[in-house]
């Protein structure tokens, strides 16, 4: 895939990591004691809290990795030399050069075809002479 499409993919994956992170954390967060007036929230089943403490670390690590990869891709962009006009000028001169090369090629091709025809003519004449000179015994 070309670099710009990769960059676009990376932006989209950063977006999906972001909303997955916040969504998962919001959905799975254990209840928290808000005010000293209210009693402690009821204790949760333990298997939730064992994995849950790692979730923010893992997910934020993934986010940061994705962001670093985006930076690496940006660094891999080819240097943008000049602007639009410089590119258009280069295209114009390349077109001129291409036309010249094409015409030269055409000329050479025609000359070569002419020579081929000449050789073929001479060869057929020589073959005829050969056939005529060689008398059947």
């Amino acid at each position: 895939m070309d670099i710009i499409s990769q960059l676009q993919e990376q932006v989209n994956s950063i977006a999906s990591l972001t909303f997955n992170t916040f969504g998962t954390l919001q959905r799975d967060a254990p209840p928290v004691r808000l005010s000293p007036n209210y009693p402690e929230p009821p204790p949760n089943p333990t298997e939730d809290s064992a994995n849950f403490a790692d979730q923010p670390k893992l997910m934020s690590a993934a986010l940061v990795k994705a962001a670093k990869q985006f930076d690496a891709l940006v660094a891999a962009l080819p240097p943008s030399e000049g602007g639009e006009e410089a590119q258009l000028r280069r295209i114009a001169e390349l077109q001129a050069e291409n036309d010249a090369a094409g015409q030269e090629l055409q000329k050479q091709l025609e000359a070569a075809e002419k020579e081929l025809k000449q050789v073929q003519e001479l060869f057929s004449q020589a073959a005829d002479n050969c056939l005529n000179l060689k008398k059947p015994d």
Partner: protein
Amino acid sequence: MATATYPPPPPFYRLYKDYLQNPKSAPEPPPPIEGTYVCFGGNYTTDDVLPSLEDQGVRQLYPKGPNIDFKKELRSLNRELQLHILELADVLVERPSQYARQVEEISLIFKNLHHLLNSLRPHQARATLIHILELQIQLRKEALEDIKRRREEARRLLKESLGTLDGQ
């Protein structure tokens, strides 16, 4: 504009009844459309250009100007994005009811990012064209050299064979 579930075909076919006998008796096909046109109720334009962010009502975060340094702007937008994600996390912890503004900021940054990447596409197209032209020039030059070489070789062979025949 009439709308129907199964519209009949347009009635122009009657004009072409004698087309086989006299091709000029039927009308010419319509010329290609230029500018904007309406197709199935939607407005389309023949001039494909990326609409600027202001046209879509989105604030532009990176500086405008003739030549933008894409790498720098992309990197700074990336940093802004990370900072806003952290801000969103903070807001969710402390003032959960005010998330909307942060979410809007984040989506603004994403829109800017995508717009910047899309504006790189014409540049990429021109660079691809340049590359193709250079490749084509190189191929033509190689073919030219090839033809020259073969002609020389053919001429040499003819001279040799001439020499052999004369020597006979």
